[in-house]
């Protein structure tokens, strides 16, 4: 870990301003991903801005009937919140399927959105990785890619977004709210929050420099059966091979976002009209343009079958 200077700030705008003052500075919230990466010098910020005690830890109903989740609400509190459990069960389920109890106690909503890929080549600084060192190459495409992406990837990067929470939020049509050093606020719909890698896989979101996530806004609840089905090799404490976040209505219509297959939670709204026709038709549309490797082409079938499992479960 490279040496860094450290400061604590008290408000979101102060945080953004502090970042603007120090090139390369990073916000530290839970730290469960950033510190992991700093130990390996995959991240090496010269300055750390600890935002752990700036508030933003409330969950509030909005006048429009939605829910505003503070950026620093930890994963445990979010999953256990009574309104989330009642109206946004999908989100609770996704959070509870992720990481471990210890990590969920520390990890924050904003940090979870921004967690970086778990591609093993990204994690080993001796290996070629365009995300870690732009232009260096990608060892994963010809290497061990069983867990990596099959769609939305590029010839520069096949890493996946590894999380669960954002997959549920994508199905819930969430919006990310931010503030910058000047106090200007933005609302970024989650469907465009993550960039696809193209030739610049090191650029992962559309956040601007020094912009701080302050909250995630969920629109009013839409009812339906909420299912988060996470498929992994061991039964817990593992990243998804494939995960399916689904809200299925009585009439068979619904929304489905898929994790573990792409650089961002993968949802194709245009495919959802096919849900009543079954998993096969839906998955074919969802995965149009997929470019799996030999090692991860099983995910094509796995997505379809997991969607089928979810639809089966929703009908019971």
């Amino acid at each position, binding site marked *: *870990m490279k*040496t860094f200077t450290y400061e604590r700030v008290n408000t979101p705008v102060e945080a953004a301003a502090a970042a603007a003052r120090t090139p390369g500075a990073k916000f530290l919230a839970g730290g469960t991903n950033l510190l992991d990466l700093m*130990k390996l010098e995959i991240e090496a910020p010269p300055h750390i801005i600890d935002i752990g005690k700036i508030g933003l830890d409330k969950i509030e109903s909005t006048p429009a009937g939605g829910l505003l989740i503070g950026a620093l609400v930890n994963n445990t509190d979010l999953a256990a919140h009574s309104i989330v459990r009642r109206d946004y069960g999908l989100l609770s389920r996704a959070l509870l399927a992720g990481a471990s109890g210890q990590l969920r106690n520390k990890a924050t909503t904003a940090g979870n959105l921004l967690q970086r890929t*778990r591609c093993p080549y990204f994690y080993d600084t001796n290996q070629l990785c365009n995300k870690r060192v732009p232009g260096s190459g990608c060892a994963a495409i010809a290497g061990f890619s069983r867990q990596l992406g099959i769609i939305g990837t590029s010839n520069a990067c096949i890493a996946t977004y590894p999380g669960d929470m954002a997959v549920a939020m994508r199905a819930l049509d969430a919006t990310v709210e931010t503030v910058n050093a000047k106090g200007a606020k933005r609302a970024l719909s989650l469907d465009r929050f993550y960039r696809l890698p193209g030739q610049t896989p090191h650029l992962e979101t559309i956040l601007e420099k020094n912009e701080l996530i302050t909250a995630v806004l969920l629109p009013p609840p839409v009812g339906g059966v909420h299912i988060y089905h996470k498929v992994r090799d061991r039964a817990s404490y*593992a990243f998804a091979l494939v995960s399916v976040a689904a809200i299925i209505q009585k009439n068979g219509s619904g929304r489905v976002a898929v994790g573990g297959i792409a650089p961002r939670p993968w949802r194709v709204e245009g495919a959802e009209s096919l849900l009543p026709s079954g998993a096969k038709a839906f998955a074919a549309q969802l995965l149009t343009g997929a470019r799996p490797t030999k090692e991860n082409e099983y995910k094509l079938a796995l997505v379809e079958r*997991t969607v089928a499992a979810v639809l089966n*479960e929703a009908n019971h």
Partner: protein
Amino acid sequence: MKFETPAGINPIDKQTVIGKPTDRIEGPLKTTGTAKYAYEHNDVVSNPAYGYVVGAAIAKGRIKSIDQTKAKAAPGVLAIVTAASAGPLKPGQFYVDKLLAGPDIDHYHQAVAVVVAETFEQARAAASLLKISYTKTKGAFDLAAAKDSAPVPKQGQFGPPPQTNVGDFGGAFASAPVKLDETYTTPDQTHAMMEPHATIARWDGDKLTCWSSIQQINWGVRDIATVLGIPKENIRLISTFIGGGFGGKGTVLSDIIAASLAARAAGRPVKVALPRPLIMNNTTHRPATIQRIRIGATPDGTITAIGHENWSGNLPGGRPESSTASTRLLYAGANRFTQLRLAVLDLAEGNAMRAPGEATGMMALEIAMDEMAEKLKMDPVAFRLKNDTQEDPEKPGRKFSTRKLVECLQTGATKFGWSKRQTQPGTVREGQWLIGMGVASAIRGAPVMKSAARVRLSREGIVTVETDMTDIGTGSYTIIGQTAAEMMGVSLDKVVVTLGDSTFPESPGSGGQWGAASATSGVYAACVKLREAVANSLGVHIEDAEFVGGQVLAGNRSHPLGDAAKAAELVVTDEMTYGTLSREYAQDTFGAHFVEVGVNSYTGEVRVRRMVAICHAGRVLNPKTARSQVIGAMTMGVGAALMEELVVDKHVGFFVNHDLAGYEVPVHADIPHQEVILLEDIDPTMSPMKAKGIGELGMVGVAAAVANAVYNATGIRVRDYPITLDKLIDKLSING
């Protein structure tokens, strides 16, 4: 004391302390965080410095140059040691790997430098400032590609003969009415013990003390001396508690050499722990195998021919994975053939991991037996029973000392409810889940080795045992205490057990499933001598003396045991050595594993629902710790079956998933309540303890039982471990 003829009745047979499910005597230390592991002896070194090991960034080649300028200038840096500055270093006598490499690099993450600084944070940061340039050369990383040119290796110190032939295997197999010829693969696996390899090294003049995490203290001292080229007498090695080993801490690895060299260079005691992401490519692992098994039988299920070939790879001079070991002994059959082949691969060193040879070999053999039973239209349990043997199938006339494989299988079948298994696979369904049952036999050798101990008796009647035996979670502290208590007729709380210090008498340490049987026998020998010393001191005849309740009873008189040490503490040392009984008898442990799995018919996820193990392993010294050994081994078996694989990147030449997120081992959620039945067994050919090891037996066969259960659930036969969902889903029918 030399053990040459089968044991008669002795004080251990009383089983007043031995054989009881006693809580671990070190339990209160382990559960309160007060048991000290290697890196934690902060009390013995004032002002330690911290060493950080740097691993090679390439798989094979040469170091062109190491630019230390920036690293040396980094805050807190005290010293940097590389092969160039370390002086001559030899390999140890067990592992072949060079523990500080340069200029040649033999495998990825081989240690190339250790950076020493005032703090851990400084050492870690400075380590990344070393600028090392390499010249890469081509390496061999693909076992399948190297297979056909792999020769039969020479017989090693451990493991079976590289090739065995009995009868006419080729002819018998060719003419067998029912036969199977299949190939199975097992992947590279890593021990993933929870405590990283760690050492604190301190020099006092030319004397070196290492607090380290080493399973075999005697090998450790020998190998430190060999690697560093210093006299054994100048080395003290201490491993009071070891945070798991499973064969991965057999003897000296890079941490101990790095710490020792660093401490010498810095002129300060140095602490080194291997960073977790380094361990899997830096240290040893269980090598991958390709195994071909051929079985021929008559229609009634009698095996007439059994052949097992195994291919594995290693660094030059490394050993083969002895997967054929069990096949030589487990089932009858007049015509037999086994062969090991060993390729050179430029991956990290392959070496012992829990039940080396047996675990891998039985992963294959016990699927083959299941397949063969199906071909014969026999129940898999019945097929195994049919081919039981009470003598060494390679050496007719050589009996097993004890062997209750049949009873293991039968008891297990009853306990598990095997009769409910559906012969037709893929027919039991609960919602989205397909349910199946599987069985496998287990066999593991029961070696016993020379072992010594010192015992002391104080005037307070406290018995203190000293031996360099280690406790890696096996229960050594407790069973050694129970042995001494039983022998001296005192309660367990009157015994103090001190282990893991090379100044104590030599034991064979923890490995090869020999630890419990050997170390307690050494303590037995020393206690026999102490009993004599006590009798002498009290002026009674040893033949008349009875040691019970903290008293020595002789004639009509009773003496408090401590009275024998009134004048001075009694101290005796003895060792147990062995004659030829292990050649006269086949000494092995046996078991049977029964597993029920659910396979999600949509996603192919496999989850273990029930596990029952039956074990037959000599006298059970402590049923609580013995059972724990077995459930732990069963858990590792589930990992081997379903998830564990060090993935080889054949382009780069390394294990890609080299941390505990990438290399998945079972977690709590994967493991249901486990049932273990320990069959009664007293084996007088072993030692006066009449005991055998059990810690490796518990793993052998588990993975195959899981594989067979997956087959029974789905009708899909996977011969390529681990059985992950991607190997199932394209054949899995959602609707049954």
